């Protein structure tokens, strides 16, 4: 496992915005709010921004139509863990700002589960930080997915391949 484990970070220089969201959220509205925050705090917008949006697939592992995806988490640890992963990734790549929004609860097919956005001074750091933070979230943040299909719930014990 090559992802950094969640740990308390010592110095946080980047602007971090972390949110667990129990209701449906619209990634573009969330990005618009984040842009306002960036503009207010930084004055000018950073030269490079990389975003990732993950959405629930219409069918589950057995290819049956999915009713919903349920996301269980470990309250308290999850938030701290995401914050620490985001701080580590931002620090490693010298990112200016990081936004993570992650759904919990029941998420419908087509709905956004996760949004990761990274602002940086150059495209490489923005892209790499966004990519690595997403992988870290998938492997290191205490979330568990259960697929609901035809009235049956099945816990997922891994991630889709990269």
């Amino acid at each position, binding site marked *: 496992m090559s992802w950094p484990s969640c*740990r308390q970070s010592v110095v946080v220089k980047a602007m971090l915005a972390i949110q667990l969201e129990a209701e449906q959220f619209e990634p573009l509205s969330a990005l618009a709010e984040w842009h306002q925050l960036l503009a207010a705090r930084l004055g000018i917008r950073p030269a490079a921004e990389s975003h990732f949006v993950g959405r629930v697939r219409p069918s589950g592992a057995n290819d049956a139509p999915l009713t919903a995806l349920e996301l269980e988490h470990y309250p308290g640890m999850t938030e701290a863990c995401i914050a620490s992963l985001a701080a580590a990734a931002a620090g490693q790549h010298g990112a200016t700002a990081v936004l993570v929004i992650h759904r919990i609860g029941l998420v419908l097919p087509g709905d956004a589960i*996760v949004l990761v956005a990274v602002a940086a001074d150059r495209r490489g750091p923005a892209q790499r930080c966004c990519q690595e933070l997403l992988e870290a979230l*998938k492997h290191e943040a205490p979330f568990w997915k259960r697929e609901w299909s035809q009235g049956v719930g099945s816990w997922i014990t891994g991630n889709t391949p990269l």
Partner: protein
Amino acid sequence: MAVSTDPESQVQVRLFAGLREAMGWSEQLVELAPAAGGNNTAGPTPEQLWRQLNLQPTNPPAGVRVAINQQFATWDSSLAAGDELAFLPPISGG
């Protein structure tokens, strides 16, 4: 209902997701046994508690991880009274 006389001598154990469902409980207060031989410095390990609570399978599967006080920890960490111990089945976030 756990019979508890002194919460300071207990460890709070939490299960999640498939493990929680398979065992049928999500939280349990576990009384720390007085250490054998009066050596009070090293508490039980998560691995010992896994067996003591009769979690299945008997040997913890490779994918299951432990957290102590909401930080990832190793199976041979030493637990202290008042700790929160969680057994985490394979993570699938993002």
